């Protein structure tokens, strides 16, 4: 117990105060309620940083009964995730001050908001199985309430799907922990870690599989991702930002904690399995994102993609660790954690941006947006930064982590087996594919919703977002740039987490430089930044000198001689992705419906109706049959429950007799 714990208790107190204040003063809860989580996040950020720079720390261990012992413990791994939650909570709380202004039930929102964040901190800081599971359940339940917050029918069904999926996942997590307890005799994480090497290999594999399925459900790996594109759009945008930015990362934390930290280095195929899951999730995630016209759902699918990229790094690290290449393994782990950080920053930012847009236009459908860059200049600018970051374009943070991930996958070529040699570069190609599709996807999002002419009355009536919303987005944008051009500094922040996960250090040289000695290559985003800015200024000046004064005539866009272009003649979001839908129709299973009415067949069409539906493969061919089966099973079981009292008495009698017979 050190003096640093004061930050923990201080933060805890603030969040509890934030949760209670709206209950005590329901009338007076203005948006200032969010000052509590804002400051609380600062306190936790300091605490997280302390964990990152110093040693593990036991916070509290309140023993109530022998089995129910609450243990909270922080180490470098949890420090990293604490910092992530704190950064995003800070910005989202500021954002929420403006965002929740016109919200109904904002007191309830404020209460849930605080408990939700506190439960995420609790998950990360849990030191034993019981504490972890209780925190995990709290997080799931509170987020369920937040998903169904607006009480619409679609939110309710999204929430139901989320609740079912998350509990199915939790079942696997519990099974994994029970197996760990059975074979190590410990409930305490530290104890499990100590004794984990004695677990038989077969059991280890089962635990690995259960942990990946359980935590993967929360993280949103394919095919366990189905709840994400339903639940994230249904929740209010500040909550979607938190869910996508940090809550799904608790799944990553769980995988790191149980598989990498507790079980230790496993066989090579574990890593290969993680790489494959990552590759499939990233490719399919972005493919589904591309065709989506609902802005928030698109972002949710893109989260699936990014979780895939994170897993590519982690998987590569596991493969390298099992080949004994610990330094390279540390670099690969750095790639994974770096992308975890980045995704928190830019996806948090993008969801906040989407929230501002939805708030201003009252629609999530991008086909009804357009031209918003002129009406909401700040939101557009920050959204552009988020898009550039998520597309991994240079100067911003996504680029650094994707570069590292590419390198990590290339390292896998050094591992012993031919399978890894083949899988790793092919996953690299999958990552390149994903990258190109992410560019297409965010060109679509930004181009269709912010550029061109407004496509509807909704878009024409958009207003500038409130200052606190802009501030929240601005802070995250700044961090996207800073972590993009100072990778050396950023990596130093969490090098202790990488060390405790892989047992090796990735010491990169310099501040803006990221060089990997093993491959005699590196990047220097800082000098890229400086050179690019100077080139930009030079280009502007040279063009001015060379071409003389700028002469511009403003006119209409090229209209082929038609009197005037209307906003309906613009390229639509559906049209934009049509080539992709056609090319990948085997994956999308798309069905095209056209209906035309003619004035004179077949030349003069009066009206054409066009619809292109994609079949969500996993929902239709995996989840639907399972649901149908459970339904029919329930239908059969129903007959047992006839409502007849005598029958029930008969059941009791039969049970009693059976028990008497078999109980001995």
């Amino acid at each position: 117990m050190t003096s640093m714990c004061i930050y923990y208790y201080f933060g805890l107190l603030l969040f509890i105060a934030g949760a209670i204040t709206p209950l005590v003063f329901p009338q007076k809860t203005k948006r200032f309620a969010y000052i509590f989580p804002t400051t609380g996040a600062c306190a936790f950020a300091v605490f997280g940083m302390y964990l990152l720079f110093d040693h593990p720390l036991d916070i509290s261990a309140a023993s109530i009964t022998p089995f129910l012992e609450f243990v909270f413990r922080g180490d470098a791994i949890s420090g990293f995730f604490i910092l992530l939650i704190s950064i995003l909570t800070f910005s989202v709380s500021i954002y929420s001050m403006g965002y929740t202004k016109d919200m109904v039930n904002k007191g309830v929102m404020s209460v849930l908001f605080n408990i939700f964040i506190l439960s995420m901190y609790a998950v990360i800081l849990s030191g034993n199985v019981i504490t972890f599971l209780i925190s995990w359940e709290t997080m799931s339940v509170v987020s369920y309430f937040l998903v169904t917050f607006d009480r619409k029918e679609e939110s309710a069904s999204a929430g139901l799907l989320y609740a079912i999926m998350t509990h199915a996942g939790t079942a696997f997590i519990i099974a994994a922990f029970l197996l760990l307890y059975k074979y190590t005799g410990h409930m305490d994480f530290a104890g499990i870690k100590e004794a984990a090497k004695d677990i038989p290999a077969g059991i280890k594999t089962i635990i690995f599989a259960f942990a990946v399925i359980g935590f993967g459900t929360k993280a949103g790996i394919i095919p366990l991702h189905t709840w994400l594109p339903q639940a994230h759009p249904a929740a209010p945008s500040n909550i979607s930002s938190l869910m996508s930015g940090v809550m799904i990362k608790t799944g990553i934390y769980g995988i790191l904690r149980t598989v990498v930290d507790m079980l230790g280095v496993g066989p090579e195929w574990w890593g290969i399995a993680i790489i494959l899951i990552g590759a499939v999730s990233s490719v399919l995630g972005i493919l589904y994102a591309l065709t989506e016209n609902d802005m928030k759902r698109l972002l949710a699918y893109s989260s699936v993609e990014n979780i895939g990229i994170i897993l590519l790094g982690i998987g590569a690290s596991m493969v390298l660790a099992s080949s004994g290449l610990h330094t390279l393994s540390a670099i690969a782990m750095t790639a994974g954690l770096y992308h975890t950080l980045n995704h928190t920053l830019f996806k948090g930012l993008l969801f906040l941006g989407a929230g501002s847009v939805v708030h201003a236009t009252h629609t999530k459908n991008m086909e009804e947006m357009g031209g918003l860059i002129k009406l909401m200049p700040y939101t557009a600018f920050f959204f552009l930064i988020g898009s550039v970051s998520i597309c991994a374009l240079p100067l911003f943070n996504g680029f650094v982590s994707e570069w590292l991930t590419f390198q990590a996958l290339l390292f896998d070529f050094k591992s012993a087996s031919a399978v890894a040699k083949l899988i790793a570069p092919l996953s690299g190609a999958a990552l390149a594919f994903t990258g190109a599709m992410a560019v297409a996807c965010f060109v679509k999002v930004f181009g269709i919703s912010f550029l061109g002419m407004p496509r509807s009355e909704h878009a024409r009536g958009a207003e500038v977002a409130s200052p606190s919303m802009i501030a929240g987005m601005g802070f995250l944008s700044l961090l996207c740039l800073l972590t993009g051009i100072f990778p050396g500094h950023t990596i130093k922040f969490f090098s202790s987490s990488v060390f405790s996960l892989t047992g090796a250090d990735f010491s990169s040289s310099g501040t803006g430089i990221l060089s990997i000695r093993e491959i005699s290559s590196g990047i220097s985003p800082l000098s890229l930044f400086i050179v690019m800015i100077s080139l930009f200024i030079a280009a502007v000046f040279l063009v001015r000198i060379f071409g003389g004064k700028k002469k511009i005539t403003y006119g209409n866009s090229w209209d082929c001689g038609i009197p005037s272009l209307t906003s309906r003649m613009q390229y639509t979001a559906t049209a934009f992705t049509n080539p992709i839908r056609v090319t990948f129709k085997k994956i999308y299973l798309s069905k095209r419906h056209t209906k035309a009415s003619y004035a004179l067949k077949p030349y003069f069409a009066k009206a054409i109706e066009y619809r292109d539906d994609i079949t969500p493969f996993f929902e239709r061919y995996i989840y639907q049959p399972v649901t149908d089966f459970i339904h029919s099973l329930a239908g059969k079981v129903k007959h047992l429950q006839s409502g007849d009292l005598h029958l029930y008495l008969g059941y009791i009698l039969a049970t009693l007799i059976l028990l008497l017979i078999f109980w001995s």
Partner: protein
Amino acid sequence: MENMQFIIIVIFSPLIQGIIKKLKANFQGRVGSSIFQPYYDLMRLFKKEMVVSHVTSWIFRVAPYIVFVSTIMAAIMVPVITTKSTYSITGDIIVLIYIFAMGKFFMALAALDSGTAFGGEGSSREMMVSILVEPMIMLCIFTTAIAAGSTNLAVIAEQHNTILTPSHMLAFFAFMIAIVADTGRIPVDNPDTHLELTMIHEGMLLEYSGRYLALMEWAHYMKQMLLFTIVVDMFFPLGIAYDGGMPEIAVAFGSYFLKILFLAGIMSVVESTRAKLRFFELPSLLGGSFALAVLSLLTLIMIGR
């Protein structure tokens, strides 16, 4: 001096474009315009008045500069005639691909900014092509990078100063198809078309005029020459200088231009002898070359060369 080698790209890229055009004209039995015509075009465009749509936003005005600057940035990172460089940032080829992606991103956005159907069409098609091309390029890069043990182009160039291995041969063919697609040439795109409905790259530039168009065009020429240079570095580095010695530089300069001219010749032959493919036939062409790239990687794993 070795740090200024990107100037070669900046200055000579319009010339390469002029040469390709001239060769194509000769193939078609025309005299064709002078090989210096692209320079005249650029100069005229820089001086011309611009017509800008009032629908556009600042994205439209910033994009030409970003495209231009990012291409020069890419040029700075490529070893042209010598692998020696004092910049700490030079050479990593994955970075190069992402810098190109940056230009593409802003070009595609600018095309959507004017709110016309043609811009959107060009933008959408360009994105489609780049989705198919990028993994292929990356796989070719992986093959050479794994063989050289580095993703740094300078290291790759120094390591492979020998004849082509089987894996490199396959990767080379795949990469050439990728370049045809990425530079917007037949059979993927027709650079000379003026029919809006068939345009890909030109469709995105449709709203541009004057100096913005000049910047975009110049960037396009530079990108073309850069991609040729990357091919030369990855597959035929023979002759490239290792340090800044004058005689060596002179040899490198000469051999570099011969190699680039050779590639330009291949381009014009391909363009003159092929017909443009229908857009939806592209996936089979590019899928085929993707298979080539995978094969090259398999070859590297199987026989180690």
